[in-house]
């Protein structure tokens, strides 16, 4: 039996909303890699950690998870800055293998911590003000997904504005291009790195708050989000905000259609396979410059 066109349309719409949230998840990873050249393999696990934190906070404060970003964003900025100073800064300029080992290690520590504290059961918040569908005839709009998509888009564009229209953004782009020349401009490169890493991690805290308005926390979502965000960045080609948004939406839609038409259990595998196939034809990504 063929699935109805309504079902497909619904799935695409949910995928688009999910895609916008993915763009927010990928943004921090992209910034850290683009500016510092560090591949943060723990990026997804910070989203996982954030999701648990939001679960605890929202349930104990009996409030909506999205409001928990007021706590998670500054807290995660601080955690990110501390991790930069304690763990990342000492390995800057070292062999890539050492850098990989360090961030993979952070990821595993976070994952083990979550397994120990929360075990492997998925957890969802009790109160989410927007966790319902509004029927529009052809499709229904899930208000929490819509809200998270709009907020994600707003933040992605906000960071784009920061990067292109402010002094600190100019300094970040200069540092990304050449940190020695940047220092010759009077830019404190160490401070820019601290800021970028802190910002990258604080964005995972925000993404986690939005994710928990309709999603669940379990110790393994970190690995899924880690892989998905990498696929998004590789597809999008580093740098541009339009490439990031487009590839996020593509991944979101593919994943959503896979869940609807194939099976939720392969919802990670299919986007990944599509990614590999794309790389055969366009090694620079869909939107990267050849």
């Amino acid at each position: 039996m063929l699935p109805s066109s309504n079902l497909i349309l619904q799935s695409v719409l949910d995928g688009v909303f999910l895609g916008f949230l993915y763009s927010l998840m990928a943004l921090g990873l992209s910034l850290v890699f683009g500016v510092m050249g560090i591949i943060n393999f723990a990026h997804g696990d910070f989203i996982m950690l954030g999701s648990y934190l939001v679960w605890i906070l929202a349930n104990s404060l009996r409030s909506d998870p999205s409001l928990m970003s007021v706590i998670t964003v500054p807290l995660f900025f601080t955690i990110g800055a501390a991790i930069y100073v304690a763990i990342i800064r000492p390995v800057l300029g070292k062999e890539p293998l050492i850098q990989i080992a360090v961030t993979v290690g952070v990821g595993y520590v976070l994952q083990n911590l979550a397994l120990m504290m929360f075990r492997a059961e998925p957890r969802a918040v009790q109160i989410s003000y927007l966790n319902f569908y509004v029927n529009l005839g052809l499709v229904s709009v899930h208000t929490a997904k819509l809200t998270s998509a709009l907020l994600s888009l707003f933040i992605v564009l906000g960071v784009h504005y920061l990067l292109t229209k402010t002094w600190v953004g100019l300094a970040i782009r200069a540092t990304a291009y050449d940190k020695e020349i940047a220092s010759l401009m009077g830019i404190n490169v160490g401070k820019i790195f601290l800021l970028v890493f802190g910002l990258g991690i604080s964005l995972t805290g925000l993404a986690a708050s939005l994710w928990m308005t309709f999603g669940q926390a379990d110790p393994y979502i970190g690995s899924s989000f880690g892989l998905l965000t990498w696929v998004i960045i590789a597809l999008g080609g580093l740098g541009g905000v339009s490439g990031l948004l487009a590839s996020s939406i593509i991944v979101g839609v593919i994943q959503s259609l896979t869940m609807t038409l194939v099976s939720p259990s392969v919802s990670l595998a299919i986007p990944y396979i599509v990614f590999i196939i794309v790389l055969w034809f366009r090694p620079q990504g869909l939107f990267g410059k050849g």
Partner: protein
Amino acid sequence: MRNALLELINVEAGYGVFRVLHDVSLRVDKGEIVALVGPNGAGKTTTLKTIVGLTNLFKGEIMFEGSRINDVPTYNRIKKGLALVPEGRGIFAPLTVLENLYLGAYHEEARQKLSDSLEMVFTIFPKLKERKNQIAGTLSGGESQMLAIGRALMSRPKILLLDEPSLGLAPKIVSELFQIFKGLNEEWKVTLLLVEQHVKNSLEISHRAYVMESGKIVLEGESSALVNDERLRKAYLII
């Protein structure tokens, strides 16, 4: 004796554990053009990098306006009034010409003079004004050198360090560039320390010069005297 604006005293410096400079001492006074010449690999670039703090300093003193700056990080040396136009120009290729110039004026004091500085740079290099919204990576060699110099001027430096500015440029543009250096010094009162391969041109526009070989200063003096120095004439075929 006049007060030195910049002074290196018995400097030993290099990269990692490798020493490139051995006991280098040199001085630049306010208002001077000083040339630093010598063959490839003599340590000229390392000398300039050491002045702005991009090498390992093993021994010696770097004095700027009478105070020791050995331990001042690079970004703060820029704030104090040093500016380096690096070898190869170091243009931020993906950014626009204007963004490159803004970056030159990144530190607070320079930012306050931003519009004045822009006007100054556009007066000296009218080409940059025409191309201000262009991506810097698309400029020609001569234009990107002008951008690199203009960007360094945006920081309102007390001394401008120039590393092989004429490298890879057509002869006509090279002589234009030397006229610009002269003009910067005479009209805009910029002090210059110039590292160059064009020995004759450099000696003609500079007040004093140092000759470097194998990480050491081997000769120094008034440029007008050095132009006629037999050793130098032989070594660099100045005719």
